[in-house]
């Protein structure tokens, strides 16, 4: 299942968004996903993709495609860190 498909499922099931409205270029505003809904969505993304989001949610996620790109980036980083045996938790401050 593609990232877009699984994100669409979450938006339809948990946020009451009509499936036909979820397209790559649909804006989160049009789908009535406000900033707090987006924060909550991050918990669901963590569960669905087995990733841990440690940084603040980016403020430049405007469209569904932006969210898909963000998730794909998280997943790629997780795979990379596993490959090199590194911890996902940022070390040092």
């Amino acid at each position: 299942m593609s990232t877009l498909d699984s994100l669409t499922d979450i938006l339809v099931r948990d946020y009451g968004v009509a499936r036909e409205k979820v397209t790559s270029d649909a804006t989160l505003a049009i789908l009535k996903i406000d900033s707090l809904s987006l924060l909550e969505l991050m918990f669901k993304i963590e569960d669905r993709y087995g990733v841990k989001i440690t940084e603040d949610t980016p403020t430049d996620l405007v469209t569904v495609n932006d969210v898909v790109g963000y998730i794909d980036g998280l997943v790629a980083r997780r795979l990379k860190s596993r490959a090199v045996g590194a911890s996902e938790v940022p070390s040092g401050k």
Partner: protein
Amino acid sequence: MTQRRVAVTGMGVVAPLGNSSEELFTNLRAGRSGVHRLADSQARGMRSPIGASVSFDGRAHFPEPRLRMLDRVSQLALVAAGQAVADARLDFAGERRERCGVFVGSALGGAGTTDEGYHTLYAERSDRIQPYSVLNAMTNAPASWIGIDHELSGPILTYSTACSSSAVALGEAARRINCGEADVMLAGGAEAPLVFGVLRAWEAMRTLATEDPQDPSASCRPFSRTRTGLVLGEGAAFAVLEEWNHAVARGAPIHAELSGYGLTSDVTHITRPTVAGQANAMRAALDSAILHPNDVDYINAHGTGTLQNDAVETAAIKAVFGERAYSIPVSSTKSMHGHLLGAAGALEFVIAVMCLKRATVPPTMHLNSPDPACDLDYVAGKARDGISVRTAMSNSFAFGGTNAVLIAKSVDRH
């Protein structure tokens, strides 16, 4: 200037024993109790795990995405307020919305959300606090949501004076209409305290009733020598208050007049009630309604079932009404629906209005052993039907010392 009068044109109730004012009153008249054993998830470890809950599932009223933004207290409030608007046959589209407002009383606000958040942090040791937690838990959420849903852009306020919160909300809303600042006010109260942390905190105060081992539903026994405390309940009750001529002009159903409101404070101790504070609130309500003590036909008592309250309230009623106190029916319906804290005043005002409409006074149940300190006519055990109730008083007294008294007058009095 003549004071503008306040009509009660709509009522809505989501409470133990009934999800409408009619259903509730029918059950109260029959002496049924809404007190029962609570689920272990709510009350584990309690010595007396009892409460009065509402038969209510938010999923039947709100879609899933919206439910996440509504603590149970807001769900109950929105449904009861919606009922009141429908009952008043009021379409706000024809109103000057900036002259319509919402006043809500709540002691604890979104207590369930707060409880859940702490559970997440302390018990689960997770940092996944729901982003909506603050908005769901804030005490003014019910009032704000009602305002948003009905697009009422006049004053929207929340009163939190513990157990008198919604009596204050109704009284203050009536004042806004009296003085000409508003034409229509949606006012009432909501409370959803049947969550683990809140129940245990109340238990720690030693004010909750001991569970009756034979019959848990009979655990709350106001004015009885065997009373052991109050039983917590949840729910919401709302009224549409309307300037009298405004209601008449649109042909609204007028249930009663909210004719009196008295407000005083005890200022002696954070929990201990005073005879003077309660008596002065009753006198102030009578004065504002321009009524004599002889005019009062029924008193819905605060009657929590605690040792202190019931004796002090009895003394205060005697201080105000003198010998006549003994011939006024006084009942505590909390014996059946429990103590709804911030929603109690509004619920019991609605019950008082129902007494006017039905010419019936509900009983005080489980009063099986008279207390010499409580020697009034408490309508023990059985409703009194077919009596003329033209003026009913509703008492609400609170921790913190805010005493609020409301008076409902029947319509045919005018």
